């Protein structure tokens, strides 16, 4: 056995790291690469098993995109998602911003306990609540209506965003408000006029998360909505485009790619804050 010198060890370690990263990037990103290739291949090329699937055996085509935008309700689904997303974001901010601030400033054990209790409700999954909700929504006459989603989605965005905002407000020094209160503002006035303006990045993070959580939701959507014109993207593509025996793989992959990549990129910018929310208390 030879004793490796420092340089050789460093090279070996860099090589090992590169191998690990190549393996995982391939595993994790491959489906998206595959969606991209599929989107631009002709149906004939996709369905000829003698063709090498990694290559464009026929020239690339925009036909699948045309079908998706002209012959399906994809655009409607995008609009629905945007509408529900904006409405849920508005409700979430209205409820979570004041609550987060109160939790951050409450003294004693109560603030901490309530904060954790609210966060734990985020962990109650849709798959426990969707059965009673199916009937509640029917009683309210909201089946097939986007308003059913607007009503129910804050049940997971509010707990998560309250928790997230609590962390943000805690990081803002109390002195700032105390100074403003010395100048004659009430506690609430200091919150609105002094704390909120310096919390723009925290509130923006809450907006992004509320919106992305809405775009990712599937269980309630598939439970409450049955007519295809009221689907959101994450429900419409898997349920409507898959129905029947004919799979429009090209258009489906295009739909998946178009709907997921922008969300992924925006989310990615904020993911560290998301993780901080998950690990508050466990990482110092």
């Amino acid at each position: 056995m030879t004793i490796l010198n420092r340089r050789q060890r460093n090279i070996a370690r860099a090589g090992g790291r590169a191998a690990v990263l190549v393996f995982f990037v391939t595993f994790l990103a491959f489906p998206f690469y595959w969606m991209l290739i599929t989107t631009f291949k002709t149906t004939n090329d996709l369905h000829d098993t003698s063709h090498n699937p990694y290559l464009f055996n026929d020239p690339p085509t925009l036909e699948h995109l045309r079908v998706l935008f002209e012959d399906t309700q994809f655009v409607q689904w995008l609009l629905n998602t945007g509408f529900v997303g904006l409405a849920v974001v508005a409700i979430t901010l209205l409820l979570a911003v004041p609550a987060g601030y109160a939790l951050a400033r409450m003294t004693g054990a109560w603030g901490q306990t309530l904060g954790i209790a609210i966060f734990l409700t985020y962990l109650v999954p849709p798959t426990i609540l969707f059965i009673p909700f199916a009937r509640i929504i029917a009683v309210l006459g909201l089946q097939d209506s986007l308003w059913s989603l607007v009503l129910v989605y804050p049940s997971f965005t509010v707990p998560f965003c309250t928790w997230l905002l609590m962390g943000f407000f805690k990081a803002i020094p109390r002195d700032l408000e105390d100074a403003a209160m010395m100048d004659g503002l009430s506690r609430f006035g200091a919150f609105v006029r002094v704390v909120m303006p310096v919390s723009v990045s925290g509130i923006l993070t809450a907006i992004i998360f509320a919106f992305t959580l809405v775009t990712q939701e599937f269980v309630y959507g598939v439970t409450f909505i049955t007519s295809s014109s009221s689907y959101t993207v994450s429900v419409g593509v898997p349920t409507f485009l898959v129905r029947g025996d004919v799979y429009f793989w090209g258009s489906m992959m295009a739909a998946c790619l178009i709907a997921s990549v922008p969300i992924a990129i925006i989310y990615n910018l904020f993911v560290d804050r998301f993780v901080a929310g998950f690990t508050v208390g466990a990482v110092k």
Partner: protein
Amino acid sequence: MMRAPGPSALRPVPRGLFSRIADNETLLWPALLAPAILYIVLLVGLPFLLSLYYSVSDVTVASRAVNFVGLENFRRIVESATFWTALRNSVIFTIVSQFFVVVFANILAVALSADFRGKWLVRLLILLPWVAPISLGAIGWLWIYDSIYSIINWTARAVGILGPNDWPIWLGQPVLAMASIIIVQIWRIVPLATVIILAGLSSIPNDINDAAAMDGAGFWRRTFQITFPLVMPITLVAVLFGVIFTFTDMIVVFVLTRGGPYDQTQVLATWAFFTGIQGGDLAGGAAVSLFLFPVLVAVAILFLNVARRTEVT
């Protein structure tokens, strides 16, 4: 929208009910918290209680009156073979996928903890499965597992792993289908676990490692005796979230197999959906979905323990 006024520009507050609340912290905090708590109680607490009630009733989608039937639904459930299949599958699905998630995420997090060029791009690509809507990601896998055009089969045959007569139908045979589902769940959770563990790794002070290296501890010894014990609590947090997002998930199974072939890949969540929503038997569905609850409680208790322990230190 908001001006940042100088102190002298601030108007004195008019006195009234509002201003009394606005200035009194014992009134203000409850007033600010009440709307959020009310919403959560009405839209999480109330449905949950209803779910408990439905599980001991005969409610259906169409029924007007709801009658108490005791444990009848649970008796029906435990007599159905599909329930036991679903329970077994949920447990296998969760344990196997989370085992691989822990191993993979730790390896990947260590590899990502160093600085190198193009790291942001690698991170973006690695995070894709978690940040993209899972129902759409699962559709991508449906195409990858396709019975005729599977890219996996084509590639395996091209490199000689599969013989000319082998052509596995990934989602068509029970064991293969279960494995396929587990692979997709690993694919989806590894990114989340990785970034959580990465956050834990970056909180380990460098000087601990440096001091150990100075004392002659090698890479492996430092990894096993310093890094691993220190990332254990954060790995536990990653596992807790992974377990919840896996055990209670129905999307991956729903999109890939609809529980098939012959209900062999049903999990509790999909079985609750097919019973309660598609079958219209809300009472039965509620009873099935309540079997998710014990795991949820266990995870919540563990999570609270982790939170408390780190608070003390």
